[in-house]
């Protein structure tokens, strides 16, 4: 319970502090970090960038991260990379994208793509959850604490299904998701840009294999994503290959080396040249050199591609160059100093790159996690918007927008439907996301069947359908037939992806392998949670319990609180959790009264602190 966060457990009591992290779940590499007065990045064999790679061995064992890269052997295992590119996509989507990935994909039920290895099927969610689990274990081992929650970053253009898929992967990995955060917003947060009142920013994210650009505007503390663009096959790898080609043209002796070795040298040259005029390396007695003017010639065609994409994104945002206040550089490839110089010249604005471009997204996510958990006292509130418009399919395959993109979230909208035939008992609603007019050009989020509609003449029933978008941009739908008040009439048919019951079953499966130390950990966790609840409630009761509650109500809450305190003496997590639930249940009306009271005081111009 937060009880309006008047009292902050973390402020006075260190053991009650939550252990929360930010996770940058990247296409090529991932990072996990915490922020508590300073940034801590958890490493894997001394590497802070953890490869987003899962290797499945023929005997069914898995390796993740650094070990997955080292242990991949084509004969004995299958190495899975860049799984993020297919998160939340249907089999048909992937075929249309023409990904040149060599993932052994097969089509499963509901057009769901699956990776089949030795007759075992893995979904993109499964594989991502293995990466997340690995990250979680690295952080937990290092801190010797169990994780209370995480903020996970996603690309700004991720739709509802992709966001839900990411959240489900986290659920499977046993991670409590505090919030999904847009990657460009995380980068802006790392630079503290949210403290500005207004301004427009470009986030230039040039990674190992992908290029993304977002145009953000900050208006009174709300980050809006005006446009995004990118290329999922343009990154540092392309620069390495361009250097390889140049090397082969200029140093014939290299032809006898394996391509992978030449690429290693190309990379070494690229990384060593960062702030030098030239660099020479010695290969088995032969010297090769690269001068910065040659390097510039090699990379110019690739950089020009990125600048063209930036221009497209800027055009799509309806802003002009002079509107841009800052450009933030994200991704390892932006270490190439020409990028900063060229962008500064093109936009004549401040290009920010002080924070390590590989870590800036994880950095922002870690700050947000610490704010959400209450560990960080800064009063940052990030308000997000819906990334893509939401609509329903109407007659003729057209999309009728229900909630427009860039609407601040959370938001709830109601739409009323009716029948078009006498006695019609069912209605099918196809929910779509995207900006285009035709349903076939947008994404279907799922079909909802409204059933048990009372028999009436055509147009008689009035069915109110509520579209609720939460703070992560994820949709839930509920429906009520207003003439009868029947509200349990909705049936969700996910077009693809996993249903809620699939996820619960998968979580159960993974829990079956639980051991004794898991149980012990759960007891400790529930004791800490119990203490938090007691602390928050006692502080609240002290401040206004006598004003807002009758003596009888006050005693009822005190009694449950006493029972919870007693339960903390036993090593029985189920009992403690039950008592926590009882306390929360019995104080619901108290929470409600406090919220009602605080709204009055807030709106009258006084802060909550003034009346308490």
């Amino acid at each position, binding site marked *: 319970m*937060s009880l309006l966060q008047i009292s902050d457990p973390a402020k006075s009591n260190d053991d009650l502090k939550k252990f929360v992290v930010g996770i940058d779940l990247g296409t090529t590499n991932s990072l996990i970090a915490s922020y508590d007065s300073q940034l801590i990045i958890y490493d894997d064999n001394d590497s802070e960038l953890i490869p987003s790679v899962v290797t499945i061995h023929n005997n069914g064992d898995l390796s993740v991260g650094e070990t997955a890269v080292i242990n991949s052997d084509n004969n004995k295992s299958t190495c899975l990379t860049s799984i993020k590119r297919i998160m939340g996509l249907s089999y048909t989507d992937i075929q249309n994208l023409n990904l040149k990935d060599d993932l052994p994909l097969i089509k499963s039920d509901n057009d769901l793509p699956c990776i089949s290895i030795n007759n075992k099927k893995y979904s993109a969610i499964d594989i991502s959850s293995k990466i997340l689990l690995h990250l979680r274990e690295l952080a937990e081992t290092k801190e010797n604490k169990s994780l209370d929650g995480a903020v996970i970053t996603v690309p700004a253009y991720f739709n509802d299904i992709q966001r839900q898929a990411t959240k489900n992967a986290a659920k499977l990995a046993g991670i409590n998701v505090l919030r999904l955060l847009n990657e460009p917003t995380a980068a802006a947060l790392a630079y503290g840009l949210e403290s500005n009142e207004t301004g427009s920013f470009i986030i230039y994210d040039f990674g190992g294999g992908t290029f993304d650009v977002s145009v953000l505007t900050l208006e009174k503390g709300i980050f809006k994503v005006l446009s995004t663009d990118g290329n999922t096959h343009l990154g540092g790898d392309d620069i390495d290959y361009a250097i390889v080609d140049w090397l082969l043209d200029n140093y014939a002796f290299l032809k006898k080396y394996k391509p992978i070795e030449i690429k290693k040298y190309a990379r070494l040259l690229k990384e060593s040249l960062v702030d030098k005029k030239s660099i020479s390396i010695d290969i088995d007695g032969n010297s090769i050199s690269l001068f910065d003017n040659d390097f510039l010639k090699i990379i110019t065609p690739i950089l020009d591609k990125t600048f063209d994409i930036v221009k497209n994104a800027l055009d799509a945002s309806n802003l002009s160059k002079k509107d841009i206040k800052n450009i933030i550089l994200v991704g390892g490839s932006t270490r190439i100093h020409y990028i900063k110089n060229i962008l500064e010249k093109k936009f004549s604005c401040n290009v920010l790159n002080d924070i390590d471009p590989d870590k800036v997204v994880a950095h922002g996510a870690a700050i947000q996690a610490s704010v959400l958990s209450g560990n960080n006292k800064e009063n940052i*509130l990030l*308000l997000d918007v819906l990334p893509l418009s939401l609509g329903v399919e109407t007659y003729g395959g057209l999309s009728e927008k229900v909630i427009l993109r860039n609407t601040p979230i*959370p938001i709830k909208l109601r739409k009323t439907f009716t029948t078009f035939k006498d006695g019609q008992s069912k209605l099918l609603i196809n929910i779509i996301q995207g900006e285009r007019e035709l349903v076939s050009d947008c994404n279907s989020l799922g079909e909802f069947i409204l059933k048990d509609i009372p028999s009436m003449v055509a147009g008689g029933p009035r069915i109110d359908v509520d579209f609720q978008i939460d703070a992560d941009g994820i949709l839930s739908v509920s429906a009520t037939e207003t003439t009868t008040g029947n509200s349990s009439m909705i049936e969700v048919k996910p077009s693809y992806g996993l249903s809620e019951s699939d996820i619960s079953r998968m979580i159960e499966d993974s829990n079956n392998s639980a051991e004794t130390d898991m149980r012990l950990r759960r007891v400790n966790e529930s004791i800490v949670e119990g203490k938090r609840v007691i602390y928050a409630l006692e502080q609240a009761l002290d401040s206004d319990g006598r004003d807002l509650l009758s003596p009888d109500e006050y005693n009822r809450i005190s009694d449950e609180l006493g029972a919870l305190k007693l339960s903390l003496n036993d090593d029985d997590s189920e009992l403690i959790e039950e008592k926590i639930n009882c306390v929360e249940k019995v104080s619901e009306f108290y929470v409600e009264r406090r919220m009602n009271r605080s*709204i009055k005081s807030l709106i009258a111009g006084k802060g909550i602190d003034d009346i308490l």
Partner: protein
Amino acid sequence: MDILKKNFFELFNIGISVDVNKLELDEKVKILQGQFHPDKYANGSDFEKRLALQISSHVNDGHKVLGDIILRIEYILKINNFNMDESKTINDIDFLQEQIEYSELAESLGENLDKEIIDVHLLKAKSLLKTTIENIKSSFESNDYEAMWQDLSKLRFYIKNINELIKMRNS
């Protein structure tokens, strides 16, 4: 829950009015989101999270409605239980004449963009818009919702025209 039953004017504690001070509205939204946004309850119980989601959504919805003059007037009519029957025809001959004239103008401008003519009509539309808003305000003061409803059609029409003319001018 009390907060969710409040109409948007009560929610933001501003008097029911055709005019709304945008800066004041934005500021109140910020204060309320600062208290009730679901992020503020990331550690809360399920009940608290649910309430926060509902209140925060209600605040955003209120911001959208009160921040837009057309939605705001519709909302004033709604909370005064005025029946907004879309099928009712408008019997104002002068207004019908205006609509026909405008569609002819838009057609001719579509063929031949003349910035000076656009500017003249833009100025005219803006002044008509201003008069319409004044009329709606005085109808509201005398509780004449029927007149407000009639003028709302004009308001929509002028706003649409102004946006179209500006778009043509910038093209």
